[in-house]
């Protein structure tokens, strides 16, 4: 310190201070620069929300209200989260043809994924809710298929059937078939509980358990799953089996009987 204070009136002292100040400014600039980029992100985000709001006004507001507060034709979307939007619009359920049907069916998706993300961002901005899961969350890798089966039979099968072939609910409502549903959408459905489905937040069913269920469905109810016994007959159990048994089983045997009876040693063919 003494050395430094002794040289404080040195002719070059001002220069050193200047250099130090410059370095400091540069350093500070370097530190603050990412903050500037974040600000740019925020701008992009608000642009996305802005775009989403435009899409919302055109496609959704007539039922859900201009600010997502809901009307008599559609529920409030405040706090449903981005995951709900990604599920409903991503599976084509939204926008719905009518609010009067017993249940809104899935159909062809009419928005691109980018537009869905914009809509999701807008709805998410209305109130906190579950976010769209990342691929790491819903990919069936590292999941326990057998555990998933057990969880599925315990929590899902009472509406969706043993392997997710779907089932009836009251007054025309139904639990849809889960055949070849995108793992992301299965995850989001569990997270948000669309229509008549109860929701299974992480506090009820852990992320790992959701993965297990998705892995189980991928194993037993997708285009990759095998049917060791031959034709599945819809995987619906004894009703379709009985129908098949009557029509093709007994029906076929009666046809054989008629064939045999027609080939008899008769004196005269009638």
């Amino acid at each position: 310190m003494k050395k430094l204070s002794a040289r404080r009136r040195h002719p070059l002292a001002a220069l050193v201070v200047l250099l130090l100040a410059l370095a400091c400014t540069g350093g500070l600039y370097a530190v603050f620069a990412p903050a500037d980029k974040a600000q740019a992100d925020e701008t992009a985000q608000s642009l996305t929300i802005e775009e989403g709001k435009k899409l919302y006004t055109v496609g959704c507001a007539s039922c859900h209200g201009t600010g997502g507060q809901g009307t008599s034709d559609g529920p409030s979307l405040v706090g449903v989260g981005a995951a709900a939007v990604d599920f409903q619009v991503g599976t084509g359920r939204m926008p719905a043809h009518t609010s009067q049907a017993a249940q809104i069916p899935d159909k062809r998706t009419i928005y691109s994924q980018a537009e869905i993300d914009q809509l999701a961002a807008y709805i998410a901005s209305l109130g906190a809710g579950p976010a769209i899961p990342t691929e790491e969350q819903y990919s069936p890798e590292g999941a326990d298929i057998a555990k998933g089966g057990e969880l599925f039979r315990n929590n899902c099968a009472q509406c969706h059937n043993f392997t997710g072939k779907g089932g009836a609910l009251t007054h025309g409502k139904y639990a849809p078939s889960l055949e070849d549903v995108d793992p992301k959408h299965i995850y989001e459905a569990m997270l948000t509980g669309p229509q008549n489905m109860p929701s299974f937040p992480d506090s009820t069913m852990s992320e790992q358990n959701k993965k297990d269920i998705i892995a189980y469905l991928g194993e037993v109810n997708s285009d990759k799953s095998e049917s060791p016994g031959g034709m599945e007959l819809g995987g619906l159990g004894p009703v379709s089996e009985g129908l098949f048994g009557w029509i093709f089983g007994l029906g076929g045997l009666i046809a054989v009987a008629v064939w045999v009876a027609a080939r008899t040693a008769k004196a005269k063919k009638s």
Partner: protein
Amino acid sequence: MSTNTSTESRSRGKAPAGERVADWADGRLGIYSLAKANMRKIFPDHWSFMLGEICLYSFLIIILTGVYLTLFFHPSMNEVEYHGSYIPMQGQLMSEAYASTLEISFDVRGGLLIRQIHHWAAVIFLAGMFVHMMRVFFTGAFRKPREINWLFGFLLFVLGMFTGFTGYSLPDDLLSGTGVRFTQGAILSVPIVGTYISMFLFGGEFPGTDFVARFYSIHILLLPGIMLGLVVAHLILVFYHKHTQFAGAGRTNKNVVGMPLLPVYMAKAGGFFFLVFGFTALIAGIASINPIWNLGPYRPDMVSTGAQPDWYMGFAEGLVRAMPGWEINFWGHTLVLGVFIPLVLFGLFLAIIALYPFIESWITGDKREHHILDRPRNAPTRTAFGVAWVTAYMIMLIGGGNDIVATHFNLSINAVTWFVRIGFFAGPVVAFIVTKRICLGLQRRDKDKVLHGRESGIIKRLPHGEFIEVHEPLSQEQMYTLTAHEQYKPAEIGPTVDENGVKRKVKGSEKLRAKLSEAYYGEESQIPKPTVEEYKEITSGHGHH
């Protein structure tokens, strides 16, 4: 007699090997006379007479495949951890019964195919019995002397239902476990004794650790044993009564026109057995049935939608699904009418068809033997009754699958249930009326055909410009077939005064019987068949219609 034959043939040199074998057997079993009497037994030929054969062969197929399955099945409810080759069940806790069924399906050579043949054959067996029973019903083959055999057949159907049900419950999978729970609920709904029966059957509270082993011995020993005995008795009676036949030229109530058992029917029946076996194996090879690996092991805390029994229990399921959930609480006891009434209806509904032969013979007062079959149209009231019964049965089958019907036809399950509720009462009435009208219409058409011949489709123009359609007269045989049936007169209440002119009391049952008989054979219920006079009158002025 047999010794004589053998000495004669020896004097002429060595008898052929077949004859020596037959001789050896006859010397010890004395079957020659029995065989001689029955080898040339005549059986009439009609495809519908082969329905019973389908049932018999399916039954044999079930026994054969069932024996194979018992070699690998473990009827135990001990809990084990699965480490077999089916990946989605790895490490799951399950009963040995379920684990061994998985093993049969995936690790036993031919196991899955045999399992599927066994199950498909059971579905076909019951369906075959149903159709066979309807054939017998609609042709009146149940009439004297065959009422007992009708009851044997009916018992086979009912026992088949329960054998099927116990077999379906053995793998201890989630679907069948739900079915067993359903049955236990039905048992519990029986007043007073229900709880005791349930505790006895399951060895304590449901599910316990016993029911698979118990159902196993019922499924493979008790019920099939009784059924085998009944099948033999059923066939002996068919031999004893001789087979019925449709009316036709040369066929009377006292003869049977057809082919001999040996060699024609033996060859045909043997061949048909292999056709049935082959066809069932084909079905089992292409279509999956009861894929228990998808269903998971039974746990009382789990249930799946679409939980139905196999089709033959479907109408019982329908009765319960359609019934409103009524309940009476009486002195701290609950009477679950919502389940108990369906249980009673289940019994009554089956009993009606079982007792029908006796009801009909009481109403008509017909105590004669019948070996010539009725054409269904010529017994309109019986046919209409049968169709009404089948209608109610089918409506209840729809009720049993109400959820599948709802999802696959985009309907509300509540609407389906209401349709079933109303249809169960209204459907049979409509079916009865419509069927009777159709039968009478067909009788009129027969009469028309006999009197005016067959419409040939040839249009002729007469010289004065009139157009007529040429009718071809029927052949003698065809006319015989159409007019061979008897037409009954309604049974009447006898004279109401006795020989001394004293008025006797007419019992209520007599009045009821007269009324029902009128419904069977009154003017409303049959079209008088053409008489010879009518025919002559019309044919004498040929060309005028």
